[in-house]
């Protein structure tokens, strides 16, 4: 069953999506327990690295501020981080200055050529947080398509730009680094909130399944364990938000 036998790589999970069991709420509980287990592992590991993506992470947190600041969200996150609620407090103190927040990138709108996927996603996060919505969402959608069709992210792509009509063409055969997958998950987090975000939330869950299926020791060589833990918790919060919106409660156990 999905979330039971996965610890090798993401392929196994993706292959089984089509035939995942239809259990209703019990399945959601299995998912929540699985994610909580990973979060605990991440918070417990003593291999924290200095994050290269601190700025992107904080931008994401800032962008999601209205979701994260509600009392119900705080309570939800406290349940997950019961062993480490200082983390939330610390995070609240960290913030970006206005200059960093308004920093935007013109690389996508006027760009044609080969681009490293990490740079592309970084630009997309900048555009999203700077409210350049249309350019941002078109390219984000193209990247989602690349991932959903090929079941992976390439380490770079070719972008063509014909009078504003942007196309993301075939990338390299090499898989992107885990750090790039993590950045993509940050980008999708920002796009998953609200009723219109379900389509993107679906891809986010797949990306995070891939990250969770890789041994913690390996992931945390490239991604900050604490930041990954927090982004997984936000994903669970958004899933919880979907459930609340359509009046589905968690299974009582």
């Amino acid at each position, binding site marked *: 069953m999905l979330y039971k036998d996965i610890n090798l790589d993401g392929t196994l999970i993706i292959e089984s999506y089509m035939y995942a069991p239809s259990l*209703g709420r019990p399945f*959601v509980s299995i998912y929540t327990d699985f994610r909580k287990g990973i979060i605990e592992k991440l918070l417990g590991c003593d291999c924290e690295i200095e994050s290269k993506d601190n700025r992107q992470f904080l931008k994401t947190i800032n962008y999601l501020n209205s979701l994260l600041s509600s009392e119900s969200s705080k309570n939800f996150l406290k349940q997950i981080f019961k062993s480490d609620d200082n983390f939330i407090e610390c995070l609240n103190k960290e913030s970006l200055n206005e200059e960093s927040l308004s920093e935007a990138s013109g690389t996508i709108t006027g760009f044609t050529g080969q681009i490293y996927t990490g740079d592309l996603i970084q630009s997309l996060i900048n555009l999203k947080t700077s409210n350049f919505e249309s350019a941002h969402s078109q390219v984000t*959608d193209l990247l989602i*398509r690349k991932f959903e069709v090929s079941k992976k992210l390439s380490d770079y792509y070719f972008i063509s730009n014909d009078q504003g009509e942007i196309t993301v063409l075939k990338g390299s055969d090499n898989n992107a680094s885990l750090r790039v997958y993590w950045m993509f998950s940050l980008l999708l987090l920002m796009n998953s909130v609200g009723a219109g975000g379900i*389509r993107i939330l679906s*891809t986010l869950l797949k990306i995070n399944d891939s990250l969770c299926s890789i041994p913690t020791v390996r992931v945390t060589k490239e991604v900050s364990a604490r930041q990954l833990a927090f982004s997984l918790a936000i994903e669970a919060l958004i899933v919880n938000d979907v459930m609340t919106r359509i009046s*589905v409660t968690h299974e009582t156990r």
Partner: protein
Amino acid sequence: MKLDNVGMIATETSRSFIYLQSLLANELIPSRVLLLSDETGEVTPDQPPNSIAVSEFLIANKIDHDVLRTRAINHKSVIDYLCNLNVPEIYIYSGYPGAILGKEILSLGKKFLHIHGGYLPKYKGSTTFYYSILQENCVGYSAIFLSEKIDAGQILLRKEFPIPTNLSGFDHTEDPKMRANMLIEVLLGYVETNKWNEAVIPNIETPYYYIIHPVLKNIAIASSSVRGISP
């Protein structure tokens, strides 16, 4: 009655089985059925356990059919088979999940009638049924002729319905039944007027939906007991 110009491409799936049952119940018999089936004979995840094989159903009901030992709709044997038949020109399409008809098969001069589990053109792609439950509290189906662009072919009929009460086991039971009902409605319209009632619906550009993550699918299933309507 035998549908002279309408055949069917069937597979060993719950959907094909229920389509054939419904067609028979409404006395709408495809002039020829092409069954795609691999050689293993094992029950696949596309079928409910202990299901009756479609091949057995075809034999038991004396429906003219041929079997090709492949699951791939774009396989050369399928192309050759269709090429060699002048009639039927229209095929009810009930392929294996996830299969997409390629350029070659779509350029044979045949039309493939498909019942899509989403209200088009709003819900293009895979598992859109579950997405529309989560986003709009309803479900939709559309009858279309398949085209090269996914879910963008000519729409013949589309409808929206309230969410059914119980969605567990939906993929194998209720979903094929709802599709079959729509298929029958389209075919009865064709038999009555001797033409396909092509709806005039502009094909707008909408986002494409990819196979829904199982967590979201299961939330949709859970929501059916809360928000669903008893049939």
